[in-house]
C-alpha cells in the first residue's frame, strides 16, 4: 500500500474542494454586488481572485510533483488527470466572477432595471447550484448526479437566451441600453460558469468510467455522439 501517495491524492482532492468553496464565495460576492450595486464589494471580489489563483497554483504544483514522483496508473492516473482539468475549470469560473464584478463597476452610474437584475440573480443561483452539484458529485464519485448537470445547464442556457429579449424590450433610452448591454455580458458569464460545471461533471464521468465523452456536443447538438475511448 502506497500510503504517502494515497495521502497526497486525498490532500489534493480536499484542496480542490477548498478551491471550489472559494469560487462559490466569489460568485456569491459578485451576485450581491450586482444586486445592491455595491462597487466596494465588486472590488473585493476582484481582489479575492488572487486567493483562488494561489489555490490553483498549489494544486497545479501538487499534481506536477505527483506525476513526476509517483507515476500514477489506472484509477489514480484518471483521478490526477481529472483533477488537473477540474482545477482549471474552477479557476476559469472564478475569472468569470471577476468579469461580473468589473461589469458591476462599469454599470454603477447607469440606470438599471430591477426585474432584469432579479432574472440574473436567479441565473446566478442556478450557477451556484451547478457548481455545488459538480463539486459534490466529483467528491462522491456520483455519476448519476454529475449527469444531472446537463439538465441544469439547459435551464441556465434558456435564461441566457431570454435575457437578450428582455434587454431589447428595455426600450430606447441610451443609458438603459448601455446598462442592458453590460447585463448581457453578465448573463453570458453566468452561462459560462454553468458550462464549466458541466465540464467538471464530464471529468467525474471519466474518473468513474474511464471513457471520456462530452455530455453535450455543440458541434452535434442533435445527440450525435462524440464519445471517445480514454
Amino acid at each position, binding site marked *: *500500500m*502506497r500510503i504517502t501517495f494515497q495521502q497526497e491524492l486525498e490532500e489534493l482532492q480536499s484542496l480542490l474542494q477548498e478551491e471550489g468553496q472559494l469560487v462559490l464565495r466569489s460568485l456569491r460576492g459578485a451576485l450581491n454586488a450586482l444586486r445592491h450595486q455595491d462597487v466596494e464589494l465588486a472590488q473585493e471580489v476582484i481582489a479575492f481572485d488572487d486567493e483562488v489563483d494561489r489555490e490553483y497554483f498549489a494544486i497545479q504544483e501538487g499534481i506536477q510533483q505527483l506525476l513526476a514522483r509517483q507515476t500514477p496508473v*489506472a484509477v489514480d*492516473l484518471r483521478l490526477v488527470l481529472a483533477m488537473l482539468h477540474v482545477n482549471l475549470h474552477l479557476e476559469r469560473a472564478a475569472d468569470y466572477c471577476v468579469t461580473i464584478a468589473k461589469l458591476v463597476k462599469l454599470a454603477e452610474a447607469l440606470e438599471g432595471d430591477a426585474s432584469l437584475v432579479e432574472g440574473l440573480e436567479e441565473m446566478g443561483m442556478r450557477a451556484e447550484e451547478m457548481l455545488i452539484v459538480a463539486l459534490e458529485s466529483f467528491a462522491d464519485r456520483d455519476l448519476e448526479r454529475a449527469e444531472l448537470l446537463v439538465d441544469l445547464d439547459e435551464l441556465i442556457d434558456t435564461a441566457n437566451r431570454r435575457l437578450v429579449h428582455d434587454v431589447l424590450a428595455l426600450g430606447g433610452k441610451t443609458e438603459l441600453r448601455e446598462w442592458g448591454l453590460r447585463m448581457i455580458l453578465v448573463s453570458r458569464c453566468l452561462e459560462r460558469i454553468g458550462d464549466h460545471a458541466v465540464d467538471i461533471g464530464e471529468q467525474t464521468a471519466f474518473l468513474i468510467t*474511464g471513457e471520456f465523452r462530452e455530455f453535450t456536443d455543440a458541434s452535434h447538438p442533435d445527440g450525435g455522439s462524440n464519445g471517445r475511448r480514454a
Partner: protein
Amino acid sequence: MTDTQSELVRIGGVNQETLAERERDLPPSEMRSVLFDVSDLQVAYAGKPALAGVSLDIYRNFVTAFIGPSGCGKSTFIRCFNRMNDLIPSASVHGTVRYHGVDLYGPEVDPVEVRKRIGMVFQKPNPFPKSIYDNIAFGPRVLDMKGNMDELVERALRQAALWDEVKDRLKESALSLSGGQQQRLCIARCLAVEPEVILMDEPASALDPISTTAIEDLMHGLKRDYTIVIVTHNMQQAARVADMTAFFSVKVSDDGKGRTGILVEYDTTSKIFTKPSDKRTEGYVTGRFG
C-alpha cells in the same frame, strides 16, 4: 462543392483515418497472429500446484509481460514456454502449450529443438568463463550451424546493441564486461542461434538504471524480428516495454496452506495501466495491495 464545403476545406480537415491509426496502438485482435496458445495450464511441484487454470495467447512480434506479486507463478509460467520445467524432476505440467499449433509437450517434440527456437535470458547475467567471441559462437558451434562464424558473431552483437562496445576486445573474457554488458552479451548469445522467441525472466532486475534502459530499448528494436516474453517485478518496466500484459496473482486455499498462482487479467498494456477490468489488477498496479 457548396460555399460552406469549400470553406471547411480551406480550414483544413483532420484525416479521421490517421487519427484512428494514431489511437490504435496495436493491431485489432482478429489481425494478431497467435504464436503460443496456452490452454488450461497447470504446473505442480511435488504434487502441489504452483500455477493453475492458465489460458492465454501470445502474439507474434509482440512484447508480452507477466507481472504479479512474488509466488504468483509468473516465472514458473514463462519456463513452460521452452520446457525449462522439464529440468526440475518434481515438476509436472498439465494442460497444453501449443507453439505454431504444435503441442510443445507432445511425445514427438525434442526439448533441445524447442530451446533452440525459444531462447531464454535469465535474471543474473550468466556468461561462460570464455572470451566474448566464444560466448556467442558456442551455441552455433554446438548446433553445427552453417555460415561464416565471424559474421554471425558480429550480427548477434549488433542486434544486442553491444558491438560498438566490444568489437576491439572480442578475445577478452566475457567476465571483464560490466553487468549490463554481460546481460546484453547473454541476449546476443541467445540471438546467435536464431531463435524465434526470446523469453526473459527479470532480465534487468540486477542492472543499474542506464543498463536497464539499454535492455528496454533493445526490446523495442528486437520485436520487429522476434517475439519477446518477459517476466518483471518492475511494473513500470512492463508499462514501458510491453504491448500486452498479463497479471498473475496468488490464490490461497481455504485451509490457508496452499498457494496457487492464477491468471487474473490479460489485456493490452495500455488497458492494464489505465483502465484494468479486474479490481485485483487495479489494486496491484496502483500499489494498493499485492
